[in-house]
């Protein structure tokens, strides 16, 4: 219940809860060309069907950020380079308990939003928390499946989330379970589309 944590204390606390995963994001580009060549050879030789368990190969050349799936963990971030101090990736089931923890530390909910990672078939929900006396800026993120994006509301802890969650639902179609009034906030009241989804083609009505 320490009310004003230092950056180190906070990082230690969350790193104990969500230890940073070992660095294993670099060798992603290597396996790309491999699965294509063997697919042709079994056909020509007439050999018995050997099902190659390689259904998901990265296709379109996208930026590296679109391919990596950040593992759960707490990472201290260089403020001068990125603009925040602590980056925390958590499972969607933990949002409320993490929000409660941050509220006990007297953090304030700065904002929250979504990001559509269509290539990974995921939706990311990003929460920004700032502390008014230690000036820490903590980013909390969690990913939910894109075809069924839902997670618990944190509006019982931070009431500011009532509007942010409505807005995120407007733009991305992410459902916040337990939200008392998840109706369109900025979009028209009968809107059924979610314009910030990457496959949004335009509101046709």
């Amino acid at each position, binding site marked *: 219940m320490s009310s004003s944590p230092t950056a180190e204390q906070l990082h230690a606390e969350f790193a104990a809860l969500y230890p940073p995963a070992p660095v294993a994001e670099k060798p992603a580009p290597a396996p790309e060309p491999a699965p294509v060549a063997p697919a042709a050879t079994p056909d020509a030789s007439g050999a018995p069907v050997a099902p190659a368990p390689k259904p998901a190969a990265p296709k379109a050349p996208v930026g590296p950020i679109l391919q990596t799936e950040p593992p759960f963990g707490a990472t201290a971030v260089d403020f001068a380079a990125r603009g925040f101090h602590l980056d925390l990736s958590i499972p969607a089931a933990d949002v409320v308990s993490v929000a409660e923890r941050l509220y006990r530390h007297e953090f304030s909910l700065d904002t929250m939003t979504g*990001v559509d990672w269509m290539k990974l078939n995921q939706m990311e929900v990003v929460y*920004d928390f700032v502390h008014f006396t230690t000036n820490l800026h903590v980013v909390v993120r969690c990913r939910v499946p894109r075809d069924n994006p839902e997670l618990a509301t944190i509006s019982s802890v931070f009431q500011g989330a009532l509007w942010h969650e409505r807005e995120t639902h407007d733009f991305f179609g992410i459902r916040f379970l337990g939200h008392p009034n998840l109706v369109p906030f900025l979009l028209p009241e009968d809107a059924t589309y979610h314009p910030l989804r990457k496959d949004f083609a335009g509101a046709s009505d």
Partner: protein
Amino acid sequence: MLLTKEQALARSTHSVGGPNETFVLNLGPQHPATHGVLRVKLTMDGEFIQRAEPVCGYIHRMHEKMGENRNYSQFLPNTSRLDYLSAMQYTHAWVGVVEKACKIEVPERAEYIRVITSELNRIASHLVGWGAWVMDLGGFTPILYAFDDREKILDLLEGICGARLTFCYYRFGGVVNDVDAAFLQGTKDFVPYMRERMKMYKKLVTGNIILRKRIEGIGMISQDMCRRYGACGPVLRGSGIQHDVRRAEPYSIYHKFDYEIPVYHECDSMARYLVRMDEIEQSLRIIEQALATFPEGPFVNPKVPKFVKVPAGDYTYATEAARGRFMVRLVADGSDTPYRVKLRTPCLANLSLFEEACAGMLLPDALAFMGSLDLVIPDIDR
């Protein structure tokens, strides 16, 4: 007089329709006191508010989507159209986040120009907020004085960037035009002029008994409430939290200047009024110091490419706009177009606490309270 919700409801049992009769009053979206297209759905019990539910989105333009289908420089004019009264700080956040991500260096002269123009813009914005608020409360004269002074600032800024409202003056790596001697001299003259005016404003308005009776003790916002809703700017500092992005997350060259962050502990509308009046003086101090040490040199980094490509990653950059913390969250994929732009605007956070703070309030008090939040509706609706 401030009533708790229970007191107000106890009182309202004397209203005509009996203890449980309420009616819905629709305030806005076209209402002079909401300064734009904000609608508030009020559930009234007599003259007391049971529930005040702001309805937003009437001027929604989907700036965040626009950010995803134009390149980094093309999005710059959009940022000055959110809170059009403090456009400088908003464009500053956008150029700031791109400069941070691409590690673009900004010449010192450009930073000085940015600080001076941002602070001038803050004064102009506070003058409008102040004049319009006092006009809401029934005092028509002050806004005419305020617009007179604001005109002087707008003339100065028009001289260097051509615009009078939606300034788009900053560029990646600097500013678009250098300032001339007329601007520097005009700003130098403006500082003592504005100080004299502030004395007059204090006599004319701040001490006015009618104003004080209308806003003292009205619209209490506790520190806990500030945290739960993410309140920012003068609203936060009027509740005794000394938090200012210029100090807390230092950007540009604000660390070079000596200035105070005004803070009042009363948590009421008067405290927010006084914070804004004090901030004008602090902005004048910053301008004065910046002019005294104004350096020579280039006004823009010549090495910045025409089409900026931002390395993949996500970045945030916050500035202290006139109404509080404005933050841009940028997710970049390495191309010349943003992957995702999130605009965290101060007015949305400050209005979101309106419903809780208003419960049990008299309707005229709620309008006085709304003025103390100094809302700009396009900033909420984006």
